[in-house]
């Protein structure tokens, strides 16, 4: 939206678009027709002048263009002179006061147009500034969340490595093994975090900059499952797809990341041996993708908050670093940018059901 109005504003200032010229022409015609009706009823000329000034004002409001506003003002004066001053249907005027009437009409009209357009520009500028601020706020929030999330695993990795460097010979094999495992786990966790950064770099103009293409939902799910947590081997992950091919318009990288986040969460927050189902269905012009688990579930009172930026739920105390808040907030931002929705519901008798939608896509096959 901002981009469009911005470029529109710039272009309108220099060269008017043909649509704007058409609007100008229509309003001038309407003004002249109304003026003619007033003339028939023998209203004073002041009424007709007012109609033309109003016309110039409306032109500038609709076209947001100086050029059209001024064009309308000048044309109004000429039309008024042509149609409504004696002798009619000429650009001459007999009455003494007319040059003044016409000059004042022109000045009033042009000032009105200028003020109106300045006003529009000011409002647009404020909206842009507000959007930019919101954009910066979102980015700042995300970066703050990330740098917080970076510290803990980095401390663990560097500390553990330092320990190995200094005390390698004094450590029991089991202790060493544990340190290796910790380093590995924490670095994997960092890798996942970095993958999420991609979504943030796509934020521009307060929204995500998507690279849309028509993708097969099945392929996207397959790709996401190849990148999920290695602990997922302790869980049963099942894919449930409809028989017909499901095509959707999406930024595949970002939707893969949404699926990875949802599946990794399901793996992280359910006990080993739990079943996770990733499914997709076509629902009312959208592809609905679900990640469903049979774990302990999330309490109803917490559910509305899980997509908030820093929300970490009840796990906050037990495990401060696993701040899921960011992952789910990014999922929501990504799905919103696609024009879809993401919801969390119950999976009876217990468990979570995260479902999100993206618009369906079409393809013309080239045989």
């Amino acid at each position: 939206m901002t981009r469009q109005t911005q470029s529109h504003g710039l272009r309108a200032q220099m060269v008017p678009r043909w649509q704007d010229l058409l609007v100008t022409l229509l309003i001038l015609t309407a003004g002249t027709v109304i003026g003619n009706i007033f003339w028939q009823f023998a209203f004073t000329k002041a009424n007709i002048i007012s109609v033309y000034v109003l016309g110039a004002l409306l032109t500038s409001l609709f076209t947001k263009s100086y050029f059209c506003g001024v064009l309308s003002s000048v044309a109004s004066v000429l039309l008024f002179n042509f149609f409504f001053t004696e002798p009619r249907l000429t650009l001459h005027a007999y009455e003494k006061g007319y040059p003044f009437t016409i000059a004042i009409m022109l000045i009033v009209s042009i000032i009105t147009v200028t003020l109106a357009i300045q006003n529009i520009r000011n409002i647009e500028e404020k909206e842009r500034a507000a959007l930019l601020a919101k954009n910066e706020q979102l980015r700042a929030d995300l970066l703050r969340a990330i740098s917080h999330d970076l510290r803990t695993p980095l401390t663990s990795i560097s500390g553990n490595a330092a320990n190995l460097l200094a005390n390698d010979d004094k450590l029991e094999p089991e202790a060493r093994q544990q340190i290796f495992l910790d380093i590995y786990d924490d670095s994997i966790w960092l890798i996942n975090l970095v993958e999420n950064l991609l979504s943030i770099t796509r934020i521009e103009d307060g929204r995500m900059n998507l690279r849309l293409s028509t993708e097969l939902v099945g392929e996207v799910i397959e790709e996401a499952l190849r990148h999920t947590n290695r602990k997922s081997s302790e869980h049963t992950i099942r894919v449930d797809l409809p028989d017909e091919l499901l095509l959707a318009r999406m930024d595949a990288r970002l939707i893969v990341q949404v699926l990875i986040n949802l599946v990794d969460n399901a793996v992280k927050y359910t006990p080993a041996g739990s079943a996770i189902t990733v499914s997709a269905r076509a629902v009312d012009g959208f592809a609905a993708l679900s990640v469903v688990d049979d774990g302990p579930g999330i309490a109803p009172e917490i559910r509305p908050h899980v997509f908030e930026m820093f929300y970490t739920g009840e796990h906050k105390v037990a495990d401060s670093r696993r701040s899921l808040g960011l992952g789910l907030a990014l999922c929501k931002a990504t799905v919103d940018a696609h024009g879809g929705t993401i919801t969390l519901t119950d999976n009876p008798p217990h468990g979570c059901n995260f479902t999100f939608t993206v618009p369906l896509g079409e393809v013309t096959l080239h045989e």
Partner: protein
Amino acid sequence: MNKPLILVVEDDAPIRNLMTTTLKTHDYRYLVADCGEEALRQAATSSPDIMLLDLGLPDLDGVEVIRRVRSWSDLPIIVISARSEDADKIEALDSGADDYLTKPFSVEELLARLRVTQRRLAAMHAGGSPVFTNGQLTIDFAAGCAFLNGQELHLTPIEYKLLCLMARNCGKVLTHTYITQKVWGTSWENDVASLRVFMATLRKKLESAPGSPQYIQTHIGVGYRMMKIE
């Protein structure tokens, strides 16, 4: 059997160490180069079996290294890139690279890619035969038909064309652009979407478990690859 010789081209010392340690512990022989010119020299003089190439080198762009090697050699090249943008991988693959790995990669992933490439090499040396065999899949190029488990596959002309293209480049990642150019002669957005659909119908006929495909692997945003099956 001769141990394969791997040329590791990487300017970052810790990553180079990681790769050479991995190679050493898994019985590969290796050479190292820390810049593009050195890589080209080694490739020309030591005739390595596989090149592991980092795209971000100090002197030459990795894609340039691929182009130069390709001007005189079919040496398999696995590109290693820290750039997560698909465009870089696609450029490298279209310039002649065989496969790619994105940093951070796991040790298992690196070894898996090497095995895929070795199998491809072995198949290439045996190659030139009018019949292609991979796992349970057989293609008789001369007769123009394909069989799975001895049963003839009923493929549409486009599906057959796709299958042959993937088979002739078995083990290699083919980009969407490459495939659509070969099959339709153009590469517009709609062609890529069509390709996805044809690939899906082909896989339905080919794969016994579509959820975990055995023959054709998808690389989202990049392309497809037929896996060599032992």
